[in-house]
């Protein structure tokens, strides 16, 4: 296992986190905690700040104010190895089109300093159902196949914190069901999963918490009050009217 496995945490806490892009406010004094063993769904209109929040938690975007802690420690104090415990599936898929599926996984596996890399890659290709196309260039894959490979790339190093931006994009019914099963598997294994999506129907099956974001402000939606879309619309109408 990589040296980064020495770092571990069971919760991620945002305290008064703000992020401004010039005069535009992407996050405004956001305070929220994500815990191990849960899948949190992040919902909101375009430009609400969902991707910014994922970027801040992933250590890619520096907050303008406030603090993000991982098990009580800041990203600065945990240093570079912290990133070895974070897996990110972006809306753009973080894959090289000129490399094959296996080469993509191998490259990122090497960067993460993973041991037993061959076995991990075989397992990842199998989970993505791409074993037979392992040596094909990613540029020849459909969006759905790339999405499946990108998910396995993000999970190759067994991250504690999994951040997903629109994970259901381009997936057919079967792949969607597999992704949902994979997310539940991650939750059961003790991962902290945060997923930004507009896909209420598919998210409904997997999320434990529903968090709405608009104009950089967070509103958590209590569970068990009708379906996701209805709850979302209700909160949007009530909280931001």
């Amino acid at each position, binding site marked *: 296992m*990589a*040296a*980064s496995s020495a770092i571990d945490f069971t919760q991620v806490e945002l305290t008064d986190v703000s992020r401004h892009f010039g005069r535009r406010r992407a996050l405004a004094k956001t305070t929220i905690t994500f815990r191990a063993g849960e899948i949190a769904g992040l919902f909101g209109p375009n430009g609400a700040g969902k991707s910014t929040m994922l*970027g801040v938690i*992933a*250590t*890619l*975007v*520096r907050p303008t104010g406030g603090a993000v802690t991982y098990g009580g420690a800041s990203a600065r104090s945990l240093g*570079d*190895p*912290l*990133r*070895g*415990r*974070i897996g*990110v599936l*972006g809306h*753009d*898929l*973080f*894959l*090289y*089109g*000129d*490399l094959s599926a296996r*080469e993509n996984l191998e*490259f*990122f596996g*090497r*960067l*993460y*300093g993973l041991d037993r890399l061959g076995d991990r890659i075989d397992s990842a290709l199998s989970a993505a159902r791409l074993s037979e196309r392992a040596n094909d260039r990613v540029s020849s894959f459909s969006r759905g196949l790339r999405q499946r490979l990108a998910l396995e*790339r993000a999970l190759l190093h067994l991250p504690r914190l999994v951040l997903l931006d629109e994970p259901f994009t381009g997936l057919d019914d079967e792949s969607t069901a597999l992704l949902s099963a994979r997310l539940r598997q991650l939750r059961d294994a003790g991962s902290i999963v945060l997923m930004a999506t507009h896909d209420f129907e598919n998210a409904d099956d997997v999320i434990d918490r529903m968090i709405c974001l608009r104009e950089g402000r967070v509103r958590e939606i209590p569970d068990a009050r009708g379906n996701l879309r209805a709850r979302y619309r209700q909160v949007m109408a009530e909280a931001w009217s």
Partner: protein
Amino acid sequence: MNVIRAAWWIARKDLIVEARSRELIYTTLFFAVACVLVFAFAFVQDGRSLDMAPTGPIGESVMPISVTDAAAGILWVAVAFSGTLALGRAFERERQSETLRALLLAPTERTAIYLGKLVGMVALMLLVELVLVPIIGLLFDAPIARAPFLLAALLIAGTLGFAAVGTLFAAMLVRAHSRDVLLPVLLYPITVPVIIAGVRGTAAIFGAEPNLDAAASWMSILIFFDAVFITLALWTFAPVMSE
């Protein structure tokens, strides 16, 4: 993870991608050769090099320049221009599918990304120079075999200094809309010392009266610039890449 090892994996990946697409090598090489040919049309006639003898106000020759002296300048102009073209694309590939973010998420020091990109760029530019130098020798009667190791060392050191600054600026400009315009505007003023040292060192080798000691001195200056530029780049790269 060891920075050097991570840099190696990034450089290796870049070279594999380039070997498959051949996008950069073909465009850079074509541009470099075209650049040299344009100069050759001006300085070569009927298969012979023209000697240039600028004249003073009263028509007397004040500083005769051999075309072999000019060849040093032409070589470095081609290296700088074609290098700029390659450097402009150094991080462009990482913008497609936002793989730059994936690199930034790796649990290694971010300077590994810079070093990996730098190694890839230097390898590409040296490959172009491997073709360029014989063409310069052929078209301008430049004595490229007079001190081959010193010439190679000058080119390697000069290319390293130029690419060290260029790779940093390419990274800084990766999210800028007018990055193609801004890169040469920022790059050339900073790398002027490298270009001057490269030209003067190469001219000392190519000259009618070669001065290898002078070439070695310019080489030392290039190494100094390389050390300064690479140190500054390693120091500034990680903050530059933070959003």
